[in-house]
Structures are given as C-alpha cells and as structure tokens.
C-alpha cells in the first residue's frame, strides 16, 4: 500500500463502482487516492482536518464527498482535484 502514511488510523474508505481500482482512503488530516487498487497512493486536497468519512457517487464516480468528524461536507466534481465546501 505504497504512499499511504504507515500506522495511521484509516477512518474513511470508498471505491468507484465503475472502476474498483480507483479508491479513496481518509486519515485524520489527509485524503489519499489510488488508481491501482491500493498499490500506490497520492494525496488529494490539502489542509484537511478531522476527516471521518469519504464517499463516491455511484452514478458519477468523479464526484467524491468527504465529511469531517464535526459534520463539514466537501464535494469534488473531478475525482479529488478540486474541492468545494457544501456545509
């Protein structure tokens, strides 16, 4: 699982149903994306705090949501490149 911070709690995980090799893993202060079934990861977005969960829209897998533990919601329309706060 190269590129994921080692020994960190992974609180959120989501997979693209269209291509299950595309997946997202959330740790407290980082969101990571793999396009290789988890073999390699890259950080997406920045400045994350208290991430709790991540979800992919099954009908449009480029659309990704994350939630913080406090209930802030962010949406990405482009597979994690850009993010907009919803709440």
């Amino acid at each position, binding site marked *: 699982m190269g590129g994921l*911070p080692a020994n*960190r*709690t992974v609180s*959120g995980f989501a997979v693209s149903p269209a291509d299950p090799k595309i997946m997202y893993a959330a740790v407290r202060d980082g969101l990571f994306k793999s396009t290789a079934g988890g073999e390699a990861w890259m950080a997406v977005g920045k400045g994350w705090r208290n991430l*709790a969960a991540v*979800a992919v829209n099954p009908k449009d897998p480029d659309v990704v949501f994350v939630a913080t533990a406090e209930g802030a919601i*962010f949406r990405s329309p482009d597979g994690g490149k850009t993010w907009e706060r919803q*709440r």
Partner: protein
Amino acid sequence: MSRIVGVALSYLLAGLLAPVLARPAAAGQAPPTAKGNVYEHVHALAVAPEGHQLFLGAHTGLFRSDDGGKTWKPAHVSTKHSHLDVMAVVFDPKDSKVMYLGTHEAGILKTTDGGSPWAEVNAGLGGLDVHGLAVAPSTPGKLHAAVREKGEGVYRTTDGGGKWTRVDDGPTGEVKVLASVNISTGMGGIYLYAGTSEGLQRSPDCF
C-alpha cells in the same frame, strides 16, 4: 535616513504579511458551525445508488441530504432503541430501497423499503457493536460486518442478514470502515478492504 528606514520597514512588513493576508482558506480548515451542530462524531457517509441522496451516519443518528450535502435533516429510523450511534451506512447497489446500518448499540438494521420500516438483522452476530459493514457489489445478499467488543470479529451473511456466521482471519486491529471491492483475488473471491487503527488492510473475502 529615518524615512528610508521607515519605508524599508513598511516594505518588509508588507512582504511578511502578504502571504498571510493573501492565503486562501485551505479546504477543511474552516471551523465547523458550532451552533446547532447535531452531526458531531460523524462516522459514515454514503451516496444512494441512484446518485441523488447523501446519507450521514453520526453519534446522533442517521441524516439525509437531497441537495448534495448543503442541507441535512434527520432520517427517522424505527427502532426500540431511543438513541442510535450510526457507525456504517451501506446500500444494495442494485436496489436503492435496500439499505443497512451498522450501529454501536443495536447491531445491524435493514430496510427493504427505502427507510420504513427498519428491522434488526442480528441473528448469529456475537455482539451488537458494529463498526464496519460491506456489501459485495456483484452479490448484494453477501455482506461482511466488523463487530467490536463482545463477540469481536468479522461476520458474513449470504442472505442479506438472515443469518450471520463468524469468519476467521480478515482484518486485524480496530476496524473503522469496511468495503467489499470487486477486484478478483484469483482464488474465486474478491477483496475485503478495511480501514483500521493500523492502516488500510485487505484480505480475500473467501477466508
């Protein structure tokens, strides 16, 4: 001379402050709205199979958004428990009316009618503190559940929660989130991914 120093100082100050003043708010850094925040301790987020509704599992129950996460309202869960700490929210990918919740105190709840009524589907589970729940994408009657504390371990059902059986192996450590991923193991099964206190783990779902 003092004027030159003053100008130089002001340039220096401006140079020091500019990056601070110009820095855009990074994603995730805006403070959460404290007032009326009922979503504390968010555990799970899911998009319904048809792609329109978002569901949020939290210490204070289940919430639904119909506008992409901007506004939320509580989703009533009929149960004998007065309080539900919703740890996991998953759907049957082929039937959006079928939804499962993993909870901290009531085990697993299932609806087959889009949210009303809900039934506890805990037969065979060793405990009721469920921290992860995963539906197999191609065979939605097959689910895995991660139970904590009493009866700790991973359980599997092949009939949509009718009966759960404890399985050996699987992820170790404290499971936070579980997902069945349609990647073939080459041994007749697919992989179960688990976000845990010890990182991300994956194991064949035929263990």
